[in-house]
């Protein structure tokens, strides 16, 4: 067995060699027989001619992070594989399969002491009309996993239906050749048969899950500017919003995108934009407008390496400071972070619900890792959170858009409502909305906007808390799955630790965190940021015990479960 009852496979090749397609098919085939899994792509910025790798981790149970090392590595070619460096690690127990004419084995892989097997993938592909080496690699991987050729054939027929009979035949022949080539090979690992699933497995990326969660929450308008790694959210929303009677506008830039969604929401239609760090930077001014004018909007930031253009195709958790503190003035708003591919759905839906309920902007900090990872998971539960905005309908007398209500939320008149006419304003305003520079109005409206967020009951969804001992590992976002696995492995080695992962980063929840930290003597903070932004954020808002250690690193090399496990073990 590989890490924690899973098997992990990596397939690498030059950009365009089809490694990623092979990985996608492998995950889907495993899903159809009931396994769960996670697939990540690692690509260079080039569309073709660069490097591409696909990592697939399969298990009978949910998979929420990458393995420490890969049990099986197949190189369609090794031409650019050295660029992955430490991202694809193999060990003495691993099986490495490569084409003898596929270039030189990268030094770190050659030095790992893995079992090496040569299979002439290119030559075999040439023997098949329109044959491609990636399908042979797929056949090899499937055979070694114990999947049947029938499962693969059914999948190929479904996936390549629109490519024609010849393409299907070529792929089937490639897969058959792969099965034959692997006939005498043994991975030395077997996954237990999956429990029969009560419902069909879902296969989706975090970005798709985010988009689905948003429309489940009531979003019917989106505006955005394309940006890696957020674009898949837009590409899912564009056709599907139309089907739902909504629309997506491709904006001329991010400044336009966020103002467009403010316009839509002002008109009564819940709205969203999706971007990454550079786009979020451009949106900050208008986020302040949405805060001041009390217009609900949702901004998804699929974080990538920064600052500036950074590493667009790789993950990092370094937009936390910008999201929490970036706005000028005192501008209370919501910041949330999903914790897995499946949780992207819940968190996006909850973000819409909170934004609509509180008439405030919500920033959702997803990241490249969970955004672009494909997961094969159990169908996510239906959630009851549907955006419900307090609306002013039967208006008699003078309407006060920003009336000081006990809970801070004042009913919002939607254009078309007679008697509700008001001007939404970024200028400091009176209860009616009329601009003023008066001290009393300024203070009253600042209080109103703070109180409505602070007095709301966010319930248990604010954080994932898994109680097990006086060492608390505090993490956030996509590292939650990694830390959960590390804690499970440490427990197997006799060291217990609790998990605390806030899903709601702003407004902060001091009372809830105090309760979560009760009895904790030590805190280990785990985060993927060079500047330890999350650690500083925790220090600023919460009382931590005296003993605190921080495991932080910039992207793009992911923090592995084994690193966290070791940090727990070393601190017994």
């Amino acid at each position: 067995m590989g890490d924690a009852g899973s098997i992990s496979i990596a397939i690498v090749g030059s950009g365009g060699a089809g490694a990623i397609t092979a990985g996608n098919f492998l995950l889907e085939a495993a899903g159809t027989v009931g396994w769960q899994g996670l697939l990540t792509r690692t690509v260079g910025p080039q569309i073709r001619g660069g490097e591409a790798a696909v990592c697939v981790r399969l298990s009978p149970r949910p998979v929420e992070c990458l393995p420490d090392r890969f049990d099986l590595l197949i190189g369609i070619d090794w031409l650019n594989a050295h660029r992955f460096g430490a991202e694809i690690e193999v060990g003495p127990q691993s099986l490495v399969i490569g084409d003898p004419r596929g270039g030189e084995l990268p030094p770190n892989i050659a030095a790992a002491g893995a079992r090496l097997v040569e299979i002439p993938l290119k030559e075999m592909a040439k023997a098949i009309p329109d044959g491609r080496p990636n399908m042979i690699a797929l056949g090899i991987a499937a055979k070694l996993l114990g999947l049947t050729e029938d499962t693969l054939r059914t999948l190929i027929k479904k996936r390549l239906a629109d490519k024609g009979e010849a393409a299907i035949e070529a792929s089937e022949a490639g897969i058959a050749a792969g099965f034959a080539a692997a006939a005498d090979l043994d991975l030395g690992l077997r996954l237990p048969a999956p429990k029969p699933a009560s419902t069909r497995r879902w296969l989706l990326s975090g970005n798709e899950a985010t988009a689905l969660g948003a429309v489940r929450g009531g979003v019917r308008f989106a505006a955005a500017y394309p940006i890696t790694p957020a674009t898949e959210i837009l590409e899912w929303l564009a056709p599907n919003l139309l089907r739902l009677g909504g629309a997506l506008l491709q904006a001329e830039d991010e400044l336009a995108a966020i103002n467009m969604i403010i316009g839509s929401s002002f008109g009564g239609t819940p709205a969203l934009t999706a971007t990454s760090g550079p786009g979020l930077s451009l949106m900050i001014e208008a986020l302040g407008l949405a805060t001041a004018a009390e217009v609900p909007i949702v901004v998804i930031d699929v974080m990538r390496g920064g600052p500036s253009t950074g590493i667009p195709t790789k993950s990092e958790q370094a937009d936390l400071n910008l999201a929490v503190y970036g706005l000028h003035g005192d501008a209370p708003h919501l910041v949330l972070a999903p914790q897995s591919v499946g949780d992207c759905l819940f968190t996006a839906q909850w973000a819409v619900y909170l934004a609509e309920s509180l008439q405030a902007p919500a920033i959702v900090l997803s990241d490249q890792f969970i955004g672009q990872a494909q997961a094969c998971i159990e169908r996510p539960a239906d959630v009851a959170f549907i955006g419900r905005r307090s609306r002013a309908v039967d208006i008699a007398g003078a309407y006060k858009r920003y009336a000081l209500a006990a809970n801070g939320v004042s009913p919002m008149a939607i254009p078309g409502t007679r008697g509700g006419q008001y001007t939404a304003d970024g200028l400091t305003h009176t209860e009616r909305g009329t601009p003023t520079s008066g001290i009393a109005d300024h203070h009253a409206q600042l209080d109103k906007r703070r109180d409505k967020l602070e007095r709301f009951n966010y319930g248990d969804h604010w954080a994932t808390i898994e109680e097990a001992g006086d060492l608390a590992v505090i993490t956030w976002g996509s590292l939650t799955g990694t830390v959960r696995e590390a804690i499970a492995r440490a427990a197997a080695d006799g060291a217990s630790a609790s998990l605390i992962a806030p899903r709601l980063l702003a407004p902060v929840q001091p009372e809830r965190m105090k309760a979560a930290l009760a009895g904790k003597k030590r805190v280990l903070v785990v985060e993927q940021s060079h500047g330890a932004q999350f650690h500083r954020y925790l220090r600023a808002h919460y009382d931590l015990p005296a003993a605190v250690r921080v495991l932080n690193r910039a992207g793009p090399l992911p923090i592995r479960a084994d690193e966290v496990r070791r940090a727990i073990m070393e601190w017994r």
Partner: protein
Amino acid sequence: MSTVESRGAFKQADYKSDVKPIWCPGCGDYHVLMSFTRAFAELGLPPEEVVVVSGIGCSSRIPAYTNCYGFHGVHGRSLALASGLKVARPDLTVVVASGDGDGYSIGGNHFLHASRRNLDMTYVVMDNHIYGMTKGQPSPTTEPEFDTALSPGGTGLRPFHPLVIALASGANFIARCFSGAPNETTAILVEAIRHPGFSFVEILSPCVTFRPDEKEWKNLVHPAPVAATSDPAKAARRIMTDDGFNIGILYRGDRKPYQPAVGTPSVELAELEKDFEL
């Protein structure tokens, strides 16, 4: 509109709010406000079905002075905000108010793309060739030799030509007005709002404080000698060669407005989820 019939005709006063305008005495924008309210009354639009959207600057204060719905947003982004509103709520009449700094400088990119997108809305720019609210800096339409504290001896830069840019970018209706001629301005605004697609109305609106020389504009403006054309090539030649004081409708296009069909779902949400099932 049925609402109009049941409520009787609207008067100009129905569109005026009780908020006292913060503009200098003699500012051209007072007349623009008057032309707005007169045009809305003439069109018989229920005030709650009109939204006036603006950015930042003297001219952008106008929404609160009307009794319509309004949005006074951030600097330069009024067209974007209005575009999102119009796509989501095509039933509303959307009028965007801006100035030469807000609309042509910080918001310049949105001007191009709103013209190109051709949503059915009206864009009114009150052009006084100066930044008034920040006390007299050169704007994209300021003459090259105009001396300011920020541009001693003048900018030396050729002024921006908004009407040509609107035409080249795809605006469907282009007109120039003078604030001091509210009857003509009202008539043109009525036409602009009625015309399908993106209507651009540039209103020369003098800044009496930082550009007292603009008091002379009333003597320079003159009605356009020929009627509006629907031929962009002819319109371009006219606009490029006129003296900048030619008042009237200069171009009327027949491009179909952009508007996605919103409001009626063709599938249930549960249907979309099936895409993810294995």
